[in-house]
């Protein structure tokens, strides 16, 4: 932040901070969180196989983030600690995504208004329910605002462009393969010229509704390859061809 002499209106301070955070978040690549019939899918383009943007928080809760790595990693670890502490003091079923989203919102809101520099991050806390109707996707922005998204959520990078593509092709209750292809196609639409992403550059994970206890699972290697197997066609998925179950 620049040195500020004299009077600067609160509106101007907040606007400067918001611009600063937004710029940082738009610098990276997008992350897509999308519901499918069997759970919630997370996909991101990640240059590193070990510095994750997508992670497990608890049995049915996962975390995805864009922006500055050290800042969202710090929040992720805090979230794991909070969830584990809550599950240890009460019971595993008492850990909820909503509570976590609230705490993140409070934390980011406080940092935004009080700390010298806002966090340049945007987060998604997603909780897979017993049915597709009870799935929850919370998106928390740098200033502590929370939005409950339904169906899908896109953040970071060219979020608007990527989100538009997902919105145009999204159908409720699609198969895992269909949703994954849609997500990967969408991730490649962040520039005017669509890019074809290779599986090695992808970070993909799911919250699998049917798994007992810990539902989070990373998809990589041969599993990811076979899910992405396009049978030689490069056409983007058609909205009406995704309904077939997996």
């Amino acid at each position, binding site marked *: 932040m620049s040195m500020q002499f004299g009077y600067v209106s609160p509106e101007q301070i907040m606007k400067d901070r918001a611009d600063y955070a937004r710029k940082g978040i738009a610098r990276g690549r997008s992350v897509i969180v999308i519901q499918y019939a069997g759970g919630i899918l997370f996909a991101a383009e990640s240059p590193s196989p070990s510095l994750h943007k997508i992670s497990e928080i608890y049995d049915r809760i996962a975390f995805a983030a864009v922006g500055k790595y050290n800042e969202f990693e*710090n929040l992720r*670890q*805090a979230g*794991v600690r909070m969830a584990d502490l809550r*599950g*240890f003091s009460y019971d595993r079923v008492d850990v909820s995504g909503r509570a976590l989203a609230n*705490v993140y919102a409070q934390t980011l809101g406080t940092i935004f208004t*009080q700390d010298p520099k806002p966090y340049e991050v945007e987060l998604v806390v997603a909780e897979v329910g017993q049915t597709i109707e009870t799935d929850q996707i919370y998106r928390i922005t740098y200033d502590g605002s929370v939005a409950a998204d339904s169906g899908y959520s896109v953040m970071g990078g060219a979020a608007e462009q990527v989100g538009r593509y997902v919105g145009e092709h999204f159908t409720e209750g699609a198969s895992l393969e269909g949703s994954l292809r849609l997500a990967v196609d969408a991730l490649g639409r962040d520039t005017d010229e669509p890019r074809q992403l290779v599986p090695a550059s992808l970070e993909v994970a799911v919250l699998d509704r049917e798994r007992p206890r810990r539902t989070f699972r990373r998809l990589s290697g041969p599993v990811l390859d076979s899910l992405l197997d396009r049978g030689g066609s490069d056409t983007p998925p058609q909205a009406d061809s995704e309904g077939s179950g997996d």
Partner: protein
Amino acid sequence: MVDVSRIGSLPAEFLTPGTSSFTEFLRLYSPELLPGNRVPAGADLGGLSPHATTLVATTFVGGVVMAGDRRATMGNMIAQRDIQKVFQADEYSAVGMAGSAGLGLELIRLFQLELEHYEKIEGTVLSLEGKANRLSHMIRGNLGMAMQGLAVVPLFAGYDLATGGGRIYSYDVTGGRYEEHQFFSVGSGSVFARGALKKLYRDDLTADDAIAVTVQALYDAADDDSATGGPDLQRRIFPIVAVVDETGYRQRDEQAVAQIVEEVVAGREIRPDGPVAPLR
């Protein structure tokens, strides 16, 4: 002074990077939740909590089996008939406990969480040796309670992905950790169980053979130790048996265990002292 504007935010301890251990975090944030941290005044507290008894474990080709009887006692009384003493520690390991039941169950819960927490924070799993050492550390933290009669003695077994076989670790109340070979038993009936294990163990056991060995050993323990529960055929309460091999941890389903138990019991009707080992 409390900074009112920060209420509802994550406390500083949550945001402090550095530790991937849940126990360390508890020590910082809410030490009262640590089992070993409540050292009460007074002498012997051993009679306050039920006592969990015998556990046995044996390796087989490609894995390890752990089994526990279902009895908890308080003095001469049976406190519980169907207590569970064998648990999944993580994907590739099992943990059981003998001794003070309340504290033991809490320690196991914390140990399970410790492994899961590390996995989530670090994005990778601990080595089997690392897990065994971690448990040792936690038992050491309970020494104060052990000295007042609330001792917990765990048994830890798992499949070692690095070497490709089952391994067993035993502990003493001071946190001493010892790797056992082939088989081991802990708890009040362990002396009798170990005698049986010695005679029944062989190098070419399959998983089901190994279960039969543990069931025989528990039968012998219950035969001579009043604190160990034998198979309860009337109530259909059978030992809890965990198998860990390269596919991970699984608790053997009750039906399969029941069948093995019934075979063992049928054998004992002909020869109550169990199978005969060759003399030479």
